């Protein structure tokens, strides 16, 4: 397993001035570019409506927390929040478990069709979402008509769909991660009387926790941010944040301060989680995807 989480330093030689200057200029400009929308989001969310309706102001004329109170009333944001949490959470748990099993099979067993499996799974990544949106829409509607299981418009249908979105990348990354866990370890566990699943859960999974965490973060972010399928496959009661947030712009005038406040509120859980766990993602990528 890769333990070096910092890049190899280039050289012990002192870097020349030209390098240091370019670096300073480039990174400063880039920081500005990255931070600009973040600043707009935070500052505008604290402005009264008059401030965001007229000319843009760098500094708010007064600071107010009312947008944070109003966002819950203008649209049923709390409901959307719960929907997003349930959908993204369930999709993440299921897809991680499925990916662990699949990656274990590919990493540790030789079987016919292995290459076909990995190539097919990966190539689904390149399909435009729009290609299977229309058929999936029809399949879900028709399954609903035939069996009474409501997939279209329900959380279940969305969970099922989102599970597959992160699956290819997750399997791919976990294969790399599992490959880097020495085989001797699970062979030893098997000698000690563990079955194949025992070896997986007692040896490989504990050793691959960073990779699994990275995959889970990725799966959650994917589901939390998805717009296309959410816009077609949800109704008023199952609407997720991705679609619900546009409710603030429905009327003639847009409550931009509320839009910004709501954007910030829905971003905080994922951004915080991501920043806490990002070093696992980098380690995971180093072990799995980038080889």
């Amino acid at each position: 397993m890769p333990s070096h989480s910092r890049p190899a330093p280039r050289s012990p030689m002192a870097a020349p001035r030209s390098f240091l200057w370019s670096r300073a200029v480039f990174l400063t400009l880039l920081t500005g570019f990255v931070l600009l929308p973040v600043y707009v989001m935070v500052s505008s969310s604290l402005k009264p409506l008059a401030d965001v309706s007229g000319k843009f102001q760098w500094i708010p004329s007064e600071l107010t927390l009312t947008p944070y109170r109003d966002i819950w009333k203008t649209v049923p944001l709390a409901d959307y929040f719960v929907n997003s949490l349930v959908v993204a959470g369930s999709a993440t748990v299921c897809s991680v478990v499925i990916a662990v099993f699949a990656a274990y099979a590919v990493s540790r067993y030789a079987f016919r069709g292995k290459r076909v499996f990995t190539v097919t799974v990966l190539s689904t990544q390149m399909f435009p979402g729009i290609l299977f949106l229309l058929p999936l829409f029809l399949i879900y509607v028709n399954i609903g008509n035939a069996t009474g299981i409501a997939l279209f418009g329900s959380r279940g249908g969305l969970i099922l769909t989102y599970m597959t979105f992160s699956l290819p990348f997750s399997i791919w990354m976990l294969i790399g991660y599992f490959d880097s866990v020495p085989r001797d370890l699970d062979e030893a566990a098997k000698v000690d009387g563990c079955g194949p699943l025992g070896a997986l859960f007692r040896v490989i999974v504990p050793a691959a926790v960073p990779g699994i965490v990275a995959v889970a973060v990725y799966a959650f972010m994917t589901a939390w941010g998805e717009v296309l399928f959410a816009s077609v496959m949800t109704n008023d009661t199952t609407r997720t944040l991705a679609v619900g947030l546009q409710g603030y712009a429905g009327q003639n005038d847009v409550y931009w301060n509320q839009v910004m406040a709501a954007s910030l509120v829905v971003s905080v859980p994922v951004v915080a989680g991501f920043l806490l766990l990002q070093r696992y993602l980098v380690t995971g990528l180093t072990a799995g995807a980038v080889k």
Partner: protein
Amino acid sequence: MSPDATMTTTAIEKPGGPTALRHDPGAVRGPRRRPGRLRTLGLPYLLLLPALVLELLVHLVPMLIGIVMSFKELTQFFIRDWGTAPWAGLDNYAVSVDFHAPVGEALLNSFLTTCLFTLLSVGLCWLIGTAAAVFMQETFRGRGVLRALFLVPYALPVYAAVITWAFMFQRDNGLINHVLHDQLGLTDSPPFWLIGENSFVTLLVVSVWKGWPFAFLIVMAGLQNIPREIYEAAALDGAGVWQQIRRITLPSLRPVNQVLVLVLFLWTFNDFNTPFVLFGRAAPEAADLVSLHIYQSSFQTWNFGTGSAMSVLLLLFLLVVTGVYLTVTSRGRKSADA
């Protein structure tokens, strides 16, 4: 990988997995002490079963149905019971590629826009991401903070980030016009950014802002696999920092770049979220990306047949580009290694 090969393997080999599996569970439940041949043979398939079923249900079967749909006259009257829709032969395709008629002309325009947009966006994302990763290879004060900061656009939910940009690009109360017009006085009157010609620039800026951190992340991970000794040896030989970057860092990143550029290309070309949140259901012509275009024309007219034909054409295009790209870059790599 040729498009045809992928299609046939998908169609023929896939059902073999689950069928083979049906014989196996018994073997798995068989006597524990005597690991039979069947059991060891069946286990990997059993482990793959959930992933296979999901991929079949949500990706492969819908894709095949989508291909079938593209040959049907699937208008709104047949949505509930689409099996009864009459066959349309190649009509849907003929409509899609008749570039002299409105539908085909709009699709061609959207396709060309998407090509240009993808080229620029992928190029810029790659350039910025690589430059940032290389500049941040060596430790300096504040590097950790900066790295976390740079990943924020990647971590932010697409809609939250894009809606913020939409606010910034508002004509009357946005930040961009405030800076360009009010503060710098560069324009005679505040321009529109979300409609008309300028919307292409808007889309590009937002897309690059959102996309470059992924390149940064991947290149950063790739840099960690370059052995330190190479740099030390180069330094001993008197190579300066710039030379080390040009001679060691960039060539070592080639395998990483091969995958990175492909993934960026596919994501950008298929991007739906950014234009959808930025412009709403109907994007201005200058920023009418092909995914949004197909979505819009499908759900506006409820003609899923034509929409599916357009999607299949898009898929074929992506398969050809991916195939050619992988062949060319892999060959280049082999001859470089030799």
